[in-house]
């Protein structure tokens, strides 16, 4: 079991897993929808020279499962921002996200451009998200579950709106990082938001290994 630091985000306690130590910039891993953080460094991240950390989003893993739902990708962004603040001692970070975590990684790279040196977007659960415009979706109350993940997280974050022009806004913001290509798309599957992102100036199309090697060198 990895060491864990509990971070406070509003009324939620977030689990930040310490997967490995190292020298230099920290690598933050963001899991997919319905997943939890790995407890050991994934093989594809083993060559990262700096510390490797992984965050459990609200309602997932060892983080708080709040009552009543109310999830949004923007709240997950604020979760990731809490981890970013906790890693400030290491300087700017690089972030890798799977599925939902890929979408959040993109948002974090745009929202905190000065503090993120590269975001790698990978396949994983929750990659597609919901529609790109208004829908006829209804609303339901869900029974609680004894263990995480929170059913409301699964339900709400699987249908959050992801208009392509909203996603590409974060690419433009990420260009303020000073990197020519601050975003790397490693996902094989590209839902509309990610296809639009992949076409933007400043986006590298690469494998995870290639992207991490690129960002480790900057």
């Amino acid at each position, binding site marked *: 079991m990895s060491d864990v630091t509990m971070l*406070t*985000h*509003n*009324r*939620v306690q977030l689990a930040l897993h310490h997967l490995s130590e190292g020298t230099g910039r920290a690598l933050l891993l963001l899991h997919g929808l319905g997943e939890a953080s790995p407890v050991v460094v994934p093989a594809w991240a083993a060559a990262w020279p700096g510390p490797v950390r992984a965050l459990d989003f*609200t309602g997932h893993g060892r983080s*708080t499962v*709040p*009552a*009543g*739902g*109310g*999830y*949004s990708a*923007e*709240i997950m*962004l*604020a979760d990731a*921002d*809490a981890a970013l*603040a906790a890693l400030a001692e290491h300087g700017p970070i690089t972030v890798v996200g799977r599925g939902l975590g890929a979408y959040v990684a993109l948002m974090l790279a*745009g*929202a*905190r451009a000065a503090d993120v040196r590269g975001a790698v977007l990978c396949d994983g659960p929750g990659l597609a998200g919901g529609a790109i*415009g*208004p829908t*006829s*979706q*209804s*609303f*339901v*109350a*869900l029974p*609680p579950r004894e263990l995480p993940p929170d059913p409301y997280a699964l339900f*709400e974050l699987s249908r*959050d*709106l*992801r*208009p392509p022009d*909203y996603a590409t*806004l974060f690419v*433009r*913001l990420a260009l*303020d990082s000073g990197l020519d290509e601050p975003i790397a798309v490693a996902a094989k599957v590209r839902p509309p938001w990610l296809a639009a992102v992949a076409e933007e100036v400043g986006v590298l199309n690469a494998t995870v290994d290639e992207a991490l090697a690129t960002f480790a060198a900057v």
Partner: protein
Amino acid sequence: MRNRVTGQRRRGRNLAPMDEPTPPPSAAAPPDATPGATPGATPSVFPGAVSPDREYLLDAGGIGIAVHEWGSEQADPLFLVHGGFDFARTYDVFAPKLAAAGWRVVSWDQRGHGDSEHAALYSWDGDLRDAMAVMDSITQYPAPVIGHSKGGSLMIQLADAQPFRFSHLVNLDGIPYKRRIPDVSEHERTRMAAGEITGWLDHRRSTATSQRKPGTLEELARRRGRMNPRLPFEWLCHLVTVGAFESEDGWRWKIDPSMRFGGFGPWRPEWTITRLPGLPMPFLGILGREQEEMGWGTLPHHVYPYLPLGGRCEVLEDVGHFVHIEQPDVVAGMVLDFLEASGASGANRGAA
């Protein structure tokens, strides 16, 4: 849904859970109370304001939602939905007028607002589920619903998704249209978005320990007046007495300090209006002509093309965003006429 709420994080008044309704006050209605209002309501310092006859907490999926009711419990229900940064008691003058016409008027504080529990997460979907919990606890039949501002916008979406809940829909200046963004370049628009996003994230980093700023009752009323410049100071003072709590260092608004105006996200305000044309229930929209900071900036010519079949949109001249507070008699009269004209009468049903 009507389970006892336990472990509540309460501030200010302690509401009883659903199975222990607050007993109606025994005092007679004040001389200045709304004519015909329910006898026995608590006197208020503001003319026409009447405290609810029943107040209780409802367990809405683990969140304690404070419900406030005016009128006979045996009357047909009518739901009132408040706007953002408001609370149910902002209907203290308007609701009794509908109750006096024979309706059981049911309103609730949205999560994080008024006497409802402060939640870990807030979202549009969460607010809609809380609304469903309240409605399900009152009736399984269609009922009239009136929503103001954000509450009106929420109810447009719920009426579209679950029309079986609605016999009528009245929208009080709550139809979002396009944001009033100045004509700026794409580059400048991106910079504005960056400021909004980082400002929101910075705020989120501080919410675990933040509190609302304390002040005297009058100071809180004056602060609120900056957002409600058209409303009487005496009314704003009344709002403090029911929407704030007093502690050793002064009064604070009850609303969760983690909430703030603004924000960002993928939703576009103009998407809400596209749900209007398909609504099957009788629809009445009431807009205030005067534009205000807390309003959506929606003008009548924005709404007319989207009205559902048979729907109406009325405009009140020289009235701002809070149409039901500035002109409670006029708006209550319009609502009651609308309900009467389409075959609904709380007075007749309430007498049954």
